[in-house]
């Protein structure tokens, strides 16, 4: 394990531990409104200040981590798997299969999915628990987010299909399914890792944007996405630097993921 890897591991472990110690680190909870101290700068009682409704930002970051850090990678995994299956198989099989799968992918890239999400919200009851709502949201994101990767995977798999080792394996009588799982898929790792890595922050941010459709985390529960949304009201960058803490944290987590994955990939290569 390199130094970078150790650092990345430590960062992730620290973030996860802190989020699980939230009850102890921020006993007042994420929903308590200190209405006398709204939009306050950092102080001894509120380490990262308070938001516009006087809720402790530090507590919100910790509790938000639980949801976002658990669900975003899960959704990213789902979308990566879908991409691997659809793009990988299509590219590997080639011909009409590939053309059909890529036409579907292109359609997925162009359709206004916003309306599907609006419909999904309409099908959910209004009195839904915040957790169910956020899980449905991440599930939808996972189900819709595979398209770009599938296209790249298809190109990669098509390349592998014509490569010598696959031909040799075929000549050696290894059956198609085994060939795909054992020889083709592992070689798609660079794209799979890229997709996984990109999807995590993209899903975290999308979850907050879906708040406008009544999906995503419901008030008063926090998520990283909703904390990052605070930055959208920014009129000047220098005034309230502590509002950037969730962003910095997300960058650290995302970078750590990438460092771990990238070393993995180099080992694999």
């Amino acid at each position, binding site marked *: 394990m390199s130094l970078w890897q150790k650092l990345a591991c430590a960062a992730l472990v620290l973030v996860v531990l802190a989020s699980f110690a939230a009850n102890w680190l921020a006993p007042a909870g994420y*929903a308590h*409104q200190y*209405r006398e101290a*709204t939009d306050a700068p950092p102080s001894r009682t509120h380490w990262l200040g308070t938001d*516009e*409704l*006087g809720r402790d930002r530090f507590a919100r970051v910790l509790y938000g981590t639980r949801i976002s850090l658990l669900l975003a990678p899960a959704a990213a995994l789902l979308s990566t798997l879908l991409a691997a299956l659809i793009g990988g198989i299509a590219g590997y099989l080639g011909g009409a299969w590939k053309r059909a799968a890529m036409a579907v992918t292109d359609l997925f890239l162009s359709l206004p999915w916003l309306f599907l999400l*609006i419909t999904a*919200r*309409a099908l959910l009851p*209004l*009195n*839904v628990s*915040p957790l169910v709502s956020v899980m449905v949201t991440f599930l939808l994101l996972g189900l819709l987010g595979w398209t770009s990767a599938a296209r790249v995977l298809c190109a990669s798999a098509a390349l592998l299909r014509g490569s010598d080792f696959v031909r040799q394996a075929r000549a050696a009588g290894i059956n198609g399914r085994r060939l795909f799982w054992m020889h083709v898929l592992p070689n798609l790792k660079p794209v799979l890792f890229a997709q996984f890595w990109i999807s995590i922050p993209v899903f975290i941010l999308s979850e907050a944007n879906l*708040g*406008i*459709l*009544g999906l995503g985390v*419901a*008030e*008063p529960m926090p998520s990283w996405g909703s904390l990052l949304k605070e930055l*959208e*009201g*920014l*009129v000047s960058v220098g005034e309230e630097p502590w509002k950037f803490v969730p962003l910095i944290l997300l960058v650290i987590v995302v970078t750590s993921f990438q460092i771990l994955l990238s070393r993995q990939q180099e080992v694999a290569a």
Partner: protein
Amino acid sequence: MKRHNRQFRCPALSAPTAKALAVLVFCLVSICTRSLAQGGGLRFCLHAEPKTFDPLKVDDDASGAIRYLTGGVLVRENRQTQQLEPGLALSWKVSSDGREISFRLRSGVSFSDGTPFSAEDVAYTVQQLMDPALHSPTGDVFRSGAGSVETKVISQTQISIRFPAPVAGLAALFDQVAIMSVRSPKKEMAVLGPFMVGDYKPGSSVVLNRNPYYWKTDAQGRKLPYLDSIHLDIQPNRDVELLRFKREELDLINSLDSEYFDKVSASSPQVVHDAGPSLDSEQLWFNQVAKAPIPGYKRNWFRSTAFRRAISQAINRDDLSRVVYHGHAQPALGPFSPANKFWFNANLKPQIYSPETALKALQGEGFRMENGTLKDKEGNEVVFSIITNAGNKQREHMAVLIQDDLQKIGIHVNVVTLDFPSLIERMTQTFDYEAIILGLTNVDLDPNNEMNVWLSSSENHQWNPSQKTPETEWEAEIDRLMREQASAADLNKRKEAFDRVQEIVAEQQPFIFLINKNALSAVSTSVRGAAPVILWPQTYWNAESLMVAGK
């Protein structure tokens, strides 16, 4: 709602004093700015694409703004003095039965393309406006009974208009009617107001140029308007609007968000104006529709006066105003804000925040507290959802504060934000909601314009629309009083009836009124002659006498 119309100001000044002051200020300003040869160009934002340039079809804010700046009207409601003033009409007279109005018109006036203006244009405009196929909201307010409108051109400068039934507050309604030319080949683009549409780039901007034929002059006899042009940028995003204002790319912000007010005020206090509470109100209401797809026990809560009053009592309105609006709002008492001086019922008592009293009242109705959760008589936990439109930060924040307030009396609230079309569908067609926070359009000062909100048979009677017969006694009473005020010719009789409506609403809380927003605006120091008021359009109501220096 997104639209906010015609609000009023409420400084502690009587109208004559205000008028005198205004004249004084105006004289001073004109002395100070006499050195300016031209008025320059003014820039500000429209928050949406104008849907039409046809003044009769106006149904949105942006088109309304353009109509205000370009349209010539017979009678103008002065946004500062709140009095009706002569426009294209030198004088007018309403008949004693309230059905007929006659105008004496200005002579020698021309449209922006040089076509002369006469009584025939007024007749044409009114006939077009009242065409039932047009479905114009401007025209619909004149429709008080079945039958057609008769216009009689007496001479080039005299006209009388007769309506099939009395129309309450008739003269003031003409403030919205921009006169169109019957003869001009340019149709609705030939205007009588201070400006005319010069250039329109859809999605980007509208440029209004000075109308060289505008009839009005200032006290020194100089032709108005001073400004050469008005550049209206179409920009829905308020953050960007503020950024551009700070960079001096814009000269004014007509309705400033309260959170930005303080930010701008900290760096340049001279540019922001808080004109005091406006007519804008925000309210919460429960779904009382009989056929709504919600559980029966919930409908019973929502239909119970005691329940609604308890909720109202458990909401800390002072905090709503202080936390959400940074103090730039006042707790609301009823349908009209105290800013509406004539029509506001001064006997209404402020709602005292008291979760204890609220809880006691609920317990009196058979509700009980169990482990911090309120349950009704049948043991159902009191849980409901509040929906509001996404993207309106203040409403979202109010919902979260209310969620927290109600938790104190054991009520669990789920806050759901929806995109506007989904919200309207739930509210007006499927009735699939429990409670909602919105601000309904407050139209003019006259309650007659809110007829469709209060009549139980109307589709805009939001909490329980389109009732065949009033389902409650108090709604029947409101129906009767609203009809009474509409047909009474005596202003004080009308006021008496509407005072009673306000009392019933305060008792029954079909709408739980939350706050009245203050009219906030920002005007660059380079703009001369600005006097922001409460009434829409707060900052550019006197656009014809504004000037921009240093450009």
